[in-house]
């Protein structure tokens, strides 16, 4: 009997604990989401309304669409163009990073020579180098090389995609390297016996097996490239022909100082695609982030 009551008491207190925890989490979650609410609320106000009160509800939600169309039809900042350029730069960079890093990592794993070991070590060591050490010499170097070859590397999509390949490949090679090591060699050997050339073996046998780790590499690099600010700023310039979304947002904030109705609407539009993508690919993104950081 005594034991029963103590059990009941424990269960009761655990229920109470659960309820308290549940309440605490809801409060915490709401606090976490307040910034998003603030953006949406104030994107639906006029500048005057925000100055009057930044925390009130908007008087009419129709203002939201007015603000959005103001952003898209803005004469100083080509927001739609920045969207397109950001998408093109991110997609192209991801394609070359995945393709070339996996090819390189495969050779480094399968070709057991001193050269492979040294090359791999150099790639891994380079991951410590902060962007700040490279950025100004890089811009100068890209200008020198561009002038020499009569190619425009600065201010162009191919130039920045090439730069992203250089910055993205060390980590991507490292991740692919760890995965390819665990693929049994027998698969490739039997393909070779069947007369498959080495190059074809990679694309027909190995590359399809990499699919789960490709997702990881895509997500890690994708979030970084989409949100990156300094490299596009230095390579593309703050008012070049090619723009990215982070540059467009800063251009907006610079041009419309303290006009929070426009600045916040521009941040809302900048966040929307990545959040929508996240809602659809949430499982993959979370898995990719975890695997990418643990390895």
């Amino acid at each position, binding site marked *: 009997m005594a034991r029963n009551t103590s059990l009941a008491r424990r269960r009761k207190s655990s229920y109470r604990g659960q309820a308290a925890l549940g309440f605490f989490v809801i409060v915490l979650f709401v606090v976490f989401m307040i910034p998003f609410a603030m953006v949406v609320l104030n994107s639906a106000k006029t500048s005057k309304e925000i100055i009057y009160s930044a925390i009130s509800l908007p008087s009419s939600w129709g203002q939201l669409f007015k603000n959005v169309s103001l952003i898209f039809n803005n004469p100083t900042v080509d927001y739609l163009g920045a969207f397109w350029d950001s998408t093109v730069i991110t997609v192209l960079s991801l394609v070359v990073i995945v393709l070339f890093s996996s090819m390189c990592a495969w050779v480094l794993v399968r070709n057991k020579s001193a050269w492979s070991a040294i090359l791999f070590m150099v790639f891994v060591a380079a991951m410590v180098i902060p962007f700040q050490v490279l950025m100004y010499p890089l811009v100068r170097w890209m200008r020198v090389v561009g002038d020499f070859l009569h190619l425009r590397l600065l201010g162009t999509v191919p130039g920045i995609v090439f730069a992203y390949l250089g910055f993205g490949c060390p980590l991507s090679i490292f991740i692919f390297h760890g995965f390819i090591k665990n693929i049994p060699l027998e698969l490739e050997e039997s393909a070779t016996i069947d007369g498959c050339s080495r190059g074809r073996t990679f694309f027909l046998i190995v590359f399809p097996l990499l699919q789960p780790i490709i997702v990881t590499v895509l997500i890690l690099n994708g979030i970084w490239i989409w949100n990156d600010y300094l490299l596009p700023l230095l390579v593309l310039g703050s008012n070049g022909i090619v723009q990215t979304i982070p540059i467009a947002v800063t251009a907006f904030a610079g041009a419309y100082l303290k006009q929070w109705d426009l600045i916040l609407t521009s*941040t809302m539009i900048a966040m929307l695609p990545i959040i929508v993508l996240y809602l659809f690919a949430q499982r993959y993104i979370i898995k990719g982030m975890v695997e990418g950081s643990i390895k």
Partner: protein
Amino acid sequence: MKRNRAVNILFTFPCVFAFTMIILIPFFYGLFYSMTDWNGVSEDIHFIGFKNFRYLFSSPDFLYSFLITIGYTAINIVLVNVVSFMLSLIVTSRIRFRNFYRAGFFIPYLIGGIVLGYIWQFIFNNALTAIGDSLSIQALQVSFLSKPGTVIWIMSVVNTWQYAGYIMLIYVASIQSIPASLMEAAAVDGANYITRVFKILIPMMANAFTISLFLTLTTSFKQFDMNLTLTNGGPATRFMEMPVKASQLLAMNIFSTATANRMAEAQAKAVVLFVALVVVALIQVSMNKKKEVEM
């Protein structure tokens, strides 16, 4: 055999080429430029030895940025890891909607530092002051971003908001890899929840803590985007009897030095940042080695 070699070279070439052009060459140029009088305009560059470095360690703005970056990093390490560890406990408990919470806490990480800096600037400068005005709370009426004493803490809060969901995922993965029977056995033996967390969970998660500490440390040390759009270095304060910017972290100090065309000086600062990160990485590696021996 010869054809194999051709494939090896062909497959590694794109990454090796991009890596050499984008990272290796600019890196060595960068080391060289830090010992010159490069100003970004003149092509006439002279070698001046360690003069830039000697100057750095007597210039108040750099010393202040260096110290404040260390402080900011220390606050972040504690704040981000405590919050994300708590979040990981919550989303691995038996609470309802735990997967929904897990997905939600991660969203801030997807938004780039540039965009979220503007959002939080609005919250601190406009929304919180509006709350202070309408409730007549004096402490809130002046923005926290305009007080030199609090601005670094505020940046840490924003940084925690951004990174907690990401670091949480690392802890969640680690918790899920611990067999549930261990925690249950301890519960049966009468250990309460707090004891179980401290005596079983945390020691079993050593690896996740190492990764998370390293990630928080390096990202805080290199913080730039959010710094630029949240505070732009301000407000003004005094250090060593000289005016300095209260929230100008190291990366931003480098950036503003270069913007003033003092390229060689900026480069020398970047080299100092690089050396600091290498020291941290070496400590990290040696600590990992030690742990491996223990296991």
